[in-house]
């Protein structure tokens, strides 16, 4: 099957045969997600992730006698281009010829390959240096093997574009010719590795490399989870309880079983709340093809018992959140005396912002195939989290996680939805129910919207005080939103450290009095990660409010923003009550206000900030640090007499430290801009009587080509040295877009929108 071949099938490896080499610390050793040793220094970054980071070239690199270099990627490809960028780094450090590179996908095996959770904008951030070590070690092994063959010192042999060269004698050998000998050599110790001079990089930082999956994608050969086909496979869809926490009451399956092609209806148990990653239960229809399964599902007669969330109603819930935001809540950061400062301020500005639930709605809905054989299970699926998949499948089948094999397909969009393996667990349960025949489980779009792990809903209330000269003297932010934590732990009513650390507590403002509070919010649905997560509501509110304060102060919003950021300095996130900092070292990954200033100034300059625009047009600016990267956007809008909004241009300046694959960084930011526009203009999932009200893309609208900004200009900040810490790329482009857009609308029309989505709020 295309796209999911496994390295172990390769005949000749440069390293040991895959399947025989397992590093210490396997799953059986109980390597859990939480580091237990209290006396070891705190780990950060990739080292703190379950499974850590592996850099043994024998795990990731294979050179065949004909020189074909196979590189194993163990991260999920979901559009960020990781399979290309991953291979670029190893190939470059190996001084390999890109035309001879082939990329294979690793199965899910955290003990063997290290952490594979593809979320949190971490792939390059956590693995770049390890990939360089892999490539450098492989190159040095090839050099040594050639030197031994020629009987010359290794220092006289150089790697040169897939060849080894002995300049003194003019001898030359291809990588394939020494691969077997190189494979027998020990892996060089980390301290002996010599990285390539970045000036000599052929691929890293250059970005003229085509996507490794480009041909398959453009010819329809690329395999996603929904495309998996196995011999003897059956197809299934599930009728799930419409209210989160509900379950089957009574049902009749007779008519469903009459549908030609339907083979069986299977009862799936509902996990008690909080159900975490576990499936919602319901009735599954298993059939000979997807269409028969869908028709069968329509014929089911089901009465549900709705459970504790039956009255969840978005309008009423919004009122609850607003009430909570208007009263004091748990203080999560405090500096000076906000109350006193607000009392004596010359101007006191208050604003409340609302952003509803959102669904990730990846174009490929959740889908996976599974086959259970005895106490073993094989999965072919589209997942961002192979390890969580193994654990969840193991749990529902009551088998050990090692017995679950996950073959990773391409992921047809993830955005956080496919970090949750509920759909894969359903497929596994159904294969068992069908006596071990492979079963492919497909979500329809309605299933996806109704049974998601939604982006949180929030009310953000801000109060600010200005002195007589318009200088900010007080900042009070109350953030109220149900937490992702509530999906996993009963009774969670406050945002967690990671949620608060996404732009609520960690504002670097030069304000003498500042307080952030987090009143309670109860969760009534499954909340999960959505690209950029809590940075979206926090940046939306904070960056809108900065512009509102600027207006009250009679200042230019860009100048006012820069003044709030203050001079360039390194802030330890802990000094802003951010204990989390994306799990990165608070010193190496300090909050660098100079970099935030840098992107603001760059975006403003490129966009022509301050230059006159036609009537009914305006520019807005917003900036935000997230995932250890810095982004600022200037959005230019036009609003016509009927209130029709168009976005002629967006400039986004971005600083993620060293840039590995500029083309993919640009692509991620282009996508982030329009996804930000989409959520700001159209995005809303709402509930009535506990049920999601949107059924498909007609009611859950997303931005299409006609409304997408036509001119998106990405400005990458000059690359730092390649040994500097890397920031994330996939997510940080999204948060500044909504507030920059709303600030632009205000500039164009004088209208301040504080409740998302914009939809028809501009209509005359």
């Amino acid at each position, binding site marked *: 099957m295309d796209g999911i071949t496994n390295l172990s099938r390769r005949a000749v490896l440069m390293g040991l045969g895959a399947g025989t080499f397992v590093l210490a610390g396997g799953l059986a050793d109980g390597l859990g997600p939480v580091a237990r040793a209290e006396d070891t220094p705190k780990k950060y970054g990739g080292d703190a992730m379950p499974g850590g980071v592996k850099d043994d070239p024998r795990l990731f690199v294979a050179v065949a006698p004909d020189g074909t270099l196979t590189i194993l990627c163990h991260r999920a490809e979901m559009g960020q281009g990781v399979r290309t960028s991953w291979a670029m780094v190893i190939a470059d450090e190996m001084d390999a010829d890109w035309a001879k590179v082939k990329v294979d996908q690793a199965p899910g095996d955290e003990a063997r390959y290290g952490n594979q959770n593809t979320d949190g904008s971490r792939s390059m951030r956590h693995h770049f240096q390890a990939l360089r070590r892999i490539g450098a070690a492989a190159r040095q092994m090839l050099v040594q093997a050639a030197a031994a063959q020629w009987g010359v010192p290794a220092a006289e042999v150089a790697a040169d574009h897939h060849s080894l060269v002995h300049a003194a004698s003019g001898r030359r050998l291809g990588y394939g010719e020494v691969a077997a000998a190189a494979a027998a050599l020990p892996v060089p110790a980390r301290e002996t590795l010599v990285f390539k001079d970045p000036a000599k990089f052929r691929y890293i930082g250059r970005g003229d490399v085509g996507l490794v999956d480009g041909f398959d994608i*453009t010819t329809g050969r690329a395999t996603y989870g929904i495309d998996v086909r196995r011999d003897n496979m059956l197809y299934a869809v599930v009728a799930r309880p419409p209210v989160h926490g509900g379950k089957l009451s009574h049902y009749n399956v007779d008519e469903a079983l009459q549908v030609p092609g339907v083979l069986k209806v299977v009862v799936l148990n509902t996990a008690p709340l909080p159900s975490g990653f576990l499936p919602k239960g319901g009735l599954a229809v298993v059939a000979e093809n997807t269409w028969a399964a869908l028709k069968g599902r329509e014929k089911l007669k089901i009465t549900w018992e709705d459970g504790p969330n039956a009255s969840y109603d978005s309008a009423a819930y919004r009122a609850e959140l607003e009430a909570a935001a208007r009263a004091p809540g748990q203080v999560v950061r405090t500096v000076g005396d906000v109350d006193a400062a607000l009392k004596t301020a010359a101007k006191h500005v208050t604003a409340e912002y609302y952003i509803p639930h959102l669904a990730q709605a*990846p*174009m490929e809905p959740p889908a996976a195939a599974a086959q259970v054989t005895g106490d073993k299970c094989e999965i072919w699926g589209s997942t961002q989290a192979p390890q969580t998949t193994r654990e969840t499948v193991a749990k529902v089948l009551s088998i050990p996680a090692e017995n679950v094999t996950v073959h990773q397909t391409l992921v047809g969009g993830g955005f956080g939805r496919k970090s949750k393996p509920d759909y894969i667990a359903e497929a596994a349960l159904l294969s068992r129910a069908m006596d071990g025949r492979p079963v492919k489980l497909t979500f329809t779009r309605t299933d996806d919207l109704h049974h998601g792990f939604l982006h949180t809903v929030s009310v953000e209330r801000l109060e600010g005080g200005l002195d007589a000269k318009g200088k900010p003297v007080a900042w009070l932010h109350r953030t109220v939103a149900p937490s992702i934590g509530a999906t996993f732990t009963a009774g969670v009513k406050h945002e967690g450290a990671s949620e608060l650390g996404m732009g609520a507590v960690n504002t670097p403002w030069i304000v003498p009095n500042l307080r952030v509070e987090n009143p309670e919010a109860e969760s009534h649905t499954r909340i999960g990660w959505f690209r950029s997560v809590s940075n979206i509501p926090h940046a939306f509110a904070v960056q809108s409010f900065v512009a509102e304060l600027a207006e009250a102060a009679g200042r230019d919003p860009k100048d006012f923003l820069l003044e709030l950021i203050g001079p360039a300095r390194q802030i330890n996130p802990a000094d802003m009550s951010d204990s989390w900092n994306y799990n990165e070292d608070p010193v190496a990954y300090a909050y660098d206000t100079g970099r935030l200033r840098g992107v603001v100034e760059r975006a403003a300059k490129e966009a022509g900030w301050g230059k006159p625009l036609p009537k009914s047009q305006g520019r807005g600016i917003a900036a935000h640090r997230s995932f250890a990267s810095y982004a600022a956007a200037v959005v230019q809008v036009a609003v016509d007499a009927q209130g029709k909004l168009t976005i002629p241009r967006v400039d986004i300046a971005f600083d993620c430290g060293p840039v590995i694959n500029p083309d993919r960084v640009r692509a991620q930011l*282009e996508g982030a801009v329009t996804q930000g526009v989409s959520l700001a203009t159209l995005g809303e999932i709402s509930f009535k009587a506990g049920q999601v009200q949107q059924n498909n893309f007609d009611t859950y609208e997303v931005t299409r080509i006609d409304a997408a900004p036509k001119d998106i200009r990405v400005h990458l900040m000059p690359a730092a040295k390649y040994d500097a810490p890397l920031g994330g790329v996939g997510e940080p482009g999204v948060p500044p877009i909504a507030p920059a857009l709303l600030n632009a609308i205000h500039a164009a029309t004088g209208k301040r929108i504080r409740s998302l989505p914009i939809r028809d709020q501009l209509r005359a």
Partner: protein
Amino acid sequence: MITFTLNGQVLRFEGDPEMPLLWYLRDVQGLTGTKFGCGEALCGACTVHADGAPIRSCQTTLGDLSGVAVTTIEGLSPDGMHPVQVAWRELNVAQCGYCQAGQIMSAAALLKDTSHPSDAAIDDAMSGNICRCATYPRIRAAIKRAAGEVQRKTASGGSAK
């Protein structure tokens, strides 16, 4: 019995004429390049050509296909070198890639009729195709790059990668 052609091959179908072409292609024929995204003609992921015109295969039943020539992404060109496919690769249009077969089929149909489409014509022809990764600027650029090539039908060689 329904007789139609699929990527140049004559097929006879004797099953339920109500079966949507999409599921027939994917589950029966194993042609999974045509994607499911919404099932209600809202997203364009399932776009194929019927006698050269773009249609949503999720809303087309086999009963509708009598005598029709259906082309899927797998049949767009024998070697993946249709000018639209080439332009898509040259500009690295795809992110996750899931929507792109549908985008390419819509774009190829557009360019067959309109050699140099305006931005408005591109909006018209392509706004039925959602890309959740939002690759729209590159889709637009790739259509412009491929324009003209399609009409010249220069099915020339070159490396596939």
